[in-house]
């Protein structure tokens, strides 16, 4: 793995036919060029660029935080901070059977309500389908939702969720990180948790991020105890 290089669209990352163009890149003759502003990375023969900005593009199996935008006859339209609104079909809302003849869908999820859901499918026209049924998936009624840049979510989660575990552990805050750039928090030192998230967001492209966050949290937590 080579060092990560800051690169702009159109810049040449590597030359040679033995490399493969991955996400955020394209081939132009012998060259592989970046299509994004981001960090170029070559692992084995695969070249890719990790974006530093951009809106959320729905992907199958992603957990996201959505907001109900519209209640229809047999489904809900869920806004997921993406160019493409998601659909939640009547059978995907709750574990019990909903009888469309007797039940009102707005009694289960109403406009403006937030939920943790999972993307089950994205069809060719880019319409994502979501479900609220499954472990950890539910309606949100309290706590706080904050917005972050979706491109920074991998750093906020960290390798094997190490970063998010660290924050939860040190602040005592319950957290759920949606891939779409929405984070839900509740309890503990919420202010500190948000401060750390903003730090990660700002420095996501820097090396040694985990160390510096760990040091910061140790200082803050021990400092407040002293």
């Amino acid at each position, binding site marked *: 793995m080579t060092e990560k290089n800051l690169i702009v669209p159109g810049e040449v990352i590597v030359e040679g036919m033995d490399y493969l163009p991955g996400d955020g890149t394209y081939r132009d003759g012998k060259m592989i060029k970046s*299509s994004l502003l981001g960090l170029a990375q070559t692992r084995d023969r695969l070249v890719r660029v990790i974006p530093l900005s951009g809106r959320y593009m729905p992907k199958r199996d992603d957990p996201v935080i959505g907001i109900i935008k519209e209640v229809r006859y047999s489904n809900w339209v869920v806004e997921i901070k993406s160019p493409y609104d998601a659909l939640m079909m009547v059978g995907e809302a709750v574990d019990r059977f909903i009888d469309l003849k007797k039940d009102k869908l707005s009694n289960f999820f109403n406009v403006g309500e937030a939920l943790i859901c999972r993307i089950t499918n994205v069809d060719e026209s880019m319409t994502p389908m979501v479900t609220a049924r499954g472990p950890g998936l539910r309606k949100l009624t309290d706590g706080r939702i904050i917005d972050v840049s979706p491109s920074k979510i991998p750093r906020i989660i960290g390798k094997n969720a190490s970063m998010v575990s660290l924050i939860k552990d040190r602040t005592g805050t319950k957290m759920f990180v949606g891939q779409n750039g929405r984070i839900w928090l509740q309890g503990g030192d919420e202010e500190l948790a948000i401060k750390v998230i903003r730090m990660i967001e700002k420095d996501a492209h820097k090396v040694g991020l985990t160390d510096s966050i760990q040091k910061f949290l140790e200082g803050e937590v021990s400092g407040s105890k002293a």
Partner: protein
Amino acid sequence: MEVKPKFLIKNGKRLDGRKVGEWREIKITTGVIPNADGSCQVDFGKTKVIAAVYGPRELHPKHMVLSDRALVRARYDMLSFSVEDRKRPGPGRREIEISKVIAEALRSVVMVEKFPRSVIDVFVTVIQADASTRIAGLNAASVALADAGIPMKGLVTGVAFGKIYDETGKGVMVADVFKPEDQWGEADIAYAKSIANDEVVLLQMDGDVTKKEFLEGKAMADKAIEYTYQEQVKALKAKYEGD
């Protein structure tokens, strides 16, 4: 009222002291509109233009939706007080035409197939005009698109060039025209390239030049484009470098 000057260049020196191939001071800054997905201000001397990108986002009205790709929409406009005589708010025929050629230039580089059914909105706003506003705007727009994380083949970079007369009345080609040269000169050529594949993506002219003059001016503009491109790259990287 201003009077037409006797010459626009004398002894190789233009009215603002520049040499023929010389460009004005170029300043490029990203992030000037925090609400936007990407934004950029480009100053070419006293010409100041800001660009903001929103999207990809849901497209209204629905009849404009393209099922297999994103629509790149551009809107060029000038603030009412960006020019000497107050401009009536809202785009007129001139602004609508410029919006069209800017959108088309940007479509040549944006990878629109990644975002079917959506729209990528590009807003170009002239806050102070001293000629070459569409080119400054296009430079700002391409940086704003990259800043917004929109995939593209590369940046679009332009520099205007023109033909002005000297004290003997002879035509001289110059790069990066400013207001008096645009107003009194013999030709004004808006010119921009896609850097990644070296293609001409915007070209507009009014005036009268020979082929030789055109190529001579274009070569000057190409030099200025090289410099401008480096400034665009620097501006994009500045946000993530340092500390």
